């Protein structure tokens, strides 16, 4: 299972929470302060306290599996109230109060089930995508509604500058613009259809430069600085999409131009592309981009059972791992600039570190005979990487940890970049990066990490050393209160 390089941190699943419901869990967790919510195929949404692992609320109402879940923060400064919006296969949308567990609003007569949700905080609206595109006001009144022509419907939605948003529909990305009229009614207009992909689009994310909204700041902050960023130059604002055929396209978020086209294939396909990766014969599913995640600097793509780190600035793949997992990678997450996590269908969760090769770092020894080969056996990269090694910027993905806990698949999900999460505002921006709406792991910084899987378990992983220290602290506090043993 585990190869080498034991992680320095000891993670302890603090609480293992057996889930009720059916086998396949489309778990979904996100921040609600120190809480997280999970949704399953049983139509149940559960709110957990991640400090103690106790179950806070049980939101019952949906009769079928939850297909999308997101948070909606309303209210003024300091008095934010977070609500939960869930969409289910029973063609209903619900607004919940996670503090009380009450269902505040329900819309049940939708024409199709919602596949993705997008909250536009600035406009105070919520957009649901599926067979149709609907815009809802904060009090869940339908603002406008647009039927789609595509059979598959909208699978992902992201927000773009200038009141625009991008929706992935089969092979196309449709750009919409929302217009708020004076009487505060919202209308949606189709701006452009981007059809550069040759296969179904699987992942759609915002890529926000070096200091974009992928950083730990809350979404509100991002929106607050939006105007300035726009002024500084359109090329800073990007978004990326990945398709089933392994195409990774970088788009300009403002004028919707195709900036870079990367076809990640196992075999040589496109001559002349410096970033192309040539690898052995793939099946289509092996080159499908399941998931994209980014921290602005890198885009991490889950391709088949491999992981690819794409440098946004250099427009090139800087590190990759062809067989990162034994089965398809479903979900990835960038924990920090160099650390990332991934999970796969078989339920394994792995932690990786992007490491520089020793060789390029020491130019003086470049010519030293044997040094290069000495270093090589230590590298876990696959044999074809020999070729790649010639690229001077190439780095490696080193396995640093393996979280074995789940027995089934860790579900498909979109990553949320790592953040301290406890800054000013409640972090709630992750859903912007969602393609599929499902979040399979959630990092709470040093508070731990939540993973969920089809085995009905939600596991809260914590740093054992830290927990031990905290427990010791509590022990001596209690000892003092008790006045000795």
């Amino acid at each position, binding site marked *: *299972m*585990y190869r080498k390089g*034991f*992680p320095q941190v*000891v993670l*302890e*699943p*603090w609480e*293992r929470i*057996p889930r009720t419901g059916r086998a396949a869990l489309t778990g979904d967790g996100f921040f609600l302060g120190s809480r997280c919510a999970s949704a399953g195929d049983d139509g149940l949404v559960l709110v957990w306290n991640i400090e103690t692992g106790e179950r806070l609320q049980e939101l019952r109402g949906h009769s079928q599996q939850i297909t999308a879940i997101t948070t909606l923060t309303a209210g003024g400064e300091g008095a934010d109230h977070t609500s939960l919006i869930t969409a289910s296969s029973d063609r209903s949308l619900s607004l919940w109060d996670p503090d009380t567990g009450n269902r505040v609003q329900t819309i049940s007569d939708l024409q199709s089930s919602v596949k993705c949700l997008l909250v536009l905080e600035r406009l105070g609206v919520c957009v649901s995508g599926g067979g149709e595109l609907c815009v809802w006001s904060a009090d869940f009144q339908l603002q406008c509604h647009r039927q789609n022509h595509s059979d598959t419907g909208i699978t992902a939605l992201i927000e773009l500058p200038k009141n625009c948003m991008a929706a992935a529909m089969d092979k196309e990305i449709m750009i919409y613009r929302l217009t708020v009229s004076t009487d505060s009614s919202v209308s949606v207009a189709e701006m452009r259809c981007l059809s550069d992909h040759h296969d179904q689009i699987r992942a759609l994310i915002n890529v926000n430069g070096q200091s974009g909204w992928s950083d730990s700041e809350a979404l509100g902050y991002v929106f607050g600085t939006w105007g300035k960023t726009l002024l500084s130059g359109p090329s800073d604002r990007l978004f990326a999409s990945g398709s089933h055929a392994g195409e990774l396209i970088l788009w300009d978020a403002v004028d919707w131009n195709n900036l870079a086209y990367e076809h990640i294939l196992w075999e040589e396909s496109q001559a002349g592309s410096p970033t192309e990766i040539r690898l052995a014969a793939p099946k289509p599913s092996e080159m499908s981009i399941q998931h994209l995640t980014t921290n602005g600097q890198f885009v991490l793509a889950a391709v088949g059972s491999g992981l690819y780190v794409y440098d946004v600035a250099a427009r090139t793949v800087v590190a990759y791992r062809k067989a990162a997992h034994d089965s398809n990678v479903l979900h990835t997450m960038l924990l920090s600039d160099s650390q990332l996590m991934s999970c796969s269908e078989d339920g394994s969760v792995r932690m990786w570190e992007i490491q520089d090769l020793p060789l390029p770092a020491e130019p003086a020894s470049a010519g030293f005979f044997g040094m290069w080969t000495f270093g090589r056996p230590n590298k876990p990269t696959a044999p074809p990487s020999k070729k790649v090694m010639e690229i001077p910027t190439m780095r490696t993905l080193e396995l640093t*940890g*393996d979280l*074995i*806990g*789940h*027995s089934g698949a860790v579900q498909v999900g979109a990553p949320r970049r790592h953040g301290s999460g406890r800054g000013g505002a409640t972090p709630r921006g992750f859903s912007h990066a969602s393609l599929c709406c499902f979040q399979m792991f959630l990092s709470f910084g040093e508070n731990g990490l939540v993973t969920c899987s089809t*085995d009905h*378990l939600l*596991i809260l992983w914590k740093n*054992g*050393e830290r*927990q*031990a*220290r905290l*427990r*010791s*602290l*509590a*022990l*001596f506090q*209690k*000892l003092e209160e008790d006045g000795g*043993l």
Partner: protein
Amino acid sequence: MCLHPDVVLLFYDAALSDAFLSNTTMIGSPDVVAFTKEDEYGQTTPDPWALPEEFSIPLHPLADSNPWAKTSYAKFTKDFILISEFSEQVGPQPLLTIPDDPKVCGTFDLNYFSLRIMSVDYQASFVGHPPGSGYPRLSFVEDSRVVLGDSKEGAFAYVHHLTLYDLEARGFVRPFCMAYVAADEKKIMLQFQELSLRFSQASECLKAGNRRAFAKELQRKLQDLEYTHSVLQREEGLQREAGPQSMYSPHAVEKANELANVEKSIYEHRDLLKQISSYHRRPRRDPQAVTCQKCMTECLEECEVLLNKYAKLANPFGYSNKAAKGEGELGRSDAERGEEEADEDEDAKRRPSYTPQLIKAKSAKCFDKRLKTLQELCEETFYEATVELLKETERSFRGDLCYLHTRRLDKALRRKQRVINFLFEEDLDDDEEEVGTLRPFCAVNHAANNFVPLNPPHIVLGSPPLELDVPEPSRPQVPASERSSVSQENELGLRESHLESSPSDQTLETQGSSEETKGSFSSDKSGTDQAEKQGSLASMKSEGPDPDSDLTPDQNTDHERESSSEEIETTTGEDDGDNGGDATPVSLLEMVAELELGQKDTGETVNEPDLLVPIDTPCCIAQEGFLYEPTAPKAVPCLQRGSLPPLDQTLVVNQEPLALLPIQDDYTVGSPGPESAAAGLELPVGPLGEPVSLASFEDGSDCTMSASTGSDRAASPLGYGGFLTLRQRKKAGQGALRFVRQYPFAMQALWCLLSGRTLVVLGVDEGRVRRLVAALALFVPDPGKCGERVQAWLSCPFTLTDLQRWKLIGLQRVASPVGSSILHSLSRYSRYISILDADLKTLRCPPYRGQLLANVADHRTCIRRGSTYFLHLQSTLCRLAAKAFLLTFTHHLHLPVSPREGSEVVEGRRRCFLQEQLGVDEEDSRILLYLSQLITQQYLQPSDGSTAKPPCFRFNYTTSVLYKI
């Protein structure tokens, strides 16, 4: 009643505190020893560094103290409890033994021994009319406690005399006694207080039941008398009408006399009823006679009801007036009677109606009378509860003195270490708040309410356990004093009624006269010596710094000894300090030393700790066979009326001649049957399930052990500190020893368990896996009260949740799709678990080369017996737990001393502590860290037993290696 020359008499002061051994023997009875004390108390200054005396174990046994020397010529194999009675018809006779197994007594002559024990009855009982009172008085007798020895038979006994009431008996009393018979004199002597406590409880229970039965009997009798009275009145009236006015025929005179007799009898019986109902208000001089408040009030209410009823009904004048009014009118009289009966029915609807019977003027001859059996004398539930109590007593005193002593030390120690007990020790039964206090005991109600009917008795072997119970030395609560205080609290109006001139006071006064006669026979033999001793003892005691001097001298206990003997009574007048001293705990060691001294030398007061109890390891080991031997099936069928077991009648008379049995109907109220007998005074009593659970105790099969070691424990309503569970654990000890000897990698396996890594025992054969699991379960820290951390046999794939829950899993190896998925889960979680393959005899676990476990997992160990190994193991684990305790509660090992310190510094300090102070290396420290983690968690979130939170699941990533044989 002649006193056999070598009966050993031990006078016991019922205030029950110190039992001291005299150094003189009584004249004419060479074996007689009496309690006295060599006062050395407080004269030594305690060495602060020395091990507390209560935990010290004598280094060398005394030369001549072979613990089996005395048992060798005893005619019985085990200690037993004998219940005898002094029948007014046939004299002393044995009634019942516990355990009720003829094998126990062997060739021991129970009849002979009954004679002995009944002949030393020191109860201050008296019979008949006290001078100056018109009616016969019930004598309220306190129990007496005597230790008796018969050197010829090799038997020593604690004898507890008690008196039950029987309306048909002479003086309404039936003397009984319960004796704990053992071959070891010391055992009796040193367990005296506990024996006394337990037998007092049993006695109280029996007496409570008896009082109810007696009240009921009185009720019936009164009804009979009423009826007889009415009939006689009618007859007399008829005669008066028939005969000439001025002339009384002899027949009429006879009738009138008869009527007068009946009236007198009614008065007498009403008075008796009053007396019996005042029983509860009477001050008890026996500090151990703590009765259950609930029972008492209930009984009191019942009696009040009865009394009220009969005050109304049984007013002979009222009745005769009525009869006189309706002179000769039979019909009307009958109608009235009918009314009254209806009245009565309303009064007590719940009791079945009783048909009164005409009482013959002449009572049957004394020797024709059939005496009631013990069962009949006591309400059934109470009787059964008593028998259960005695059974439990017998059970808890099994084993020899060394064993009992060690067990108590162990218990006392464990009570001190509550923080870490949960790790390896079995659960202490008594709750913390119960320790040191004696709740009023009620076998019946408590047995019905919760299945922990017994208050674990105080360790009165010596002082240590008592002192351990008490956290602060400033308030040394000693059972005797507490008991008395409790009894004061519970017996309502004790003080007030003490001052009143209640019937009991009268009896108290009249006791003196009766004791004159009793005292005479013993004072012939030992009077002067006793008195001297007692006096000197008292004086010495008053000198010593008495830790209990703040206790108010209990007057009750003061008078207590009156019932024992006259000699003691004379001394009690002299000093009150004696009573304070009564509460002084005497250490076992002291007592033994004095015992030894008493046998050797007279006046010298030597208090050398060297001359102490002979305890050496070989004796413990050799004794185990006896201790743990699966005892003969002793699920004694409940002795019930009419269904008495056919035990050998030659030894024990527990059944009346069959010809007399039909008479029983006379005693039943309403419908016949044992249930209805109790129905007259109903009690909210649940079924006593003890016999059933007892049976489940006895088969300590591997399965139950492994599946839930603790559930047996938890389910045991009677388990005293898991006495029976110990047998199971010992069995597991054998398994563990076998495992250690058989597998060279046992140490690694044990390390896994102790460091919190789940161990999976994989195998095809269920029995083998279960046995292995049972053996290894000993090593699972914090196995939970019900063994929640151990899963003996699992035949489905396990998940991560299971790994968190269980630390030891027996897993079935099957060749099927299920089996493959099991194997898949094994490989999936192989990082978190160690796998012991029972079939291939391999172990897959992280490498371990530590030395900490070398002495418990030595595969060339010289230990041959499982129980020995178990003890060895326990001591090792105990040491580990102590180290973990130290690690857990040392502040600077976990938290920075100064704010500048980082966690690395703290960690370094911890590592340093582990390696240099505790001397454990890296791998061994994993054990300590795990134990420490458990302690921390337990301390932060004390589990309330039922919902034990699974420990946090923590792991490090380490590689595993495969060990093979």
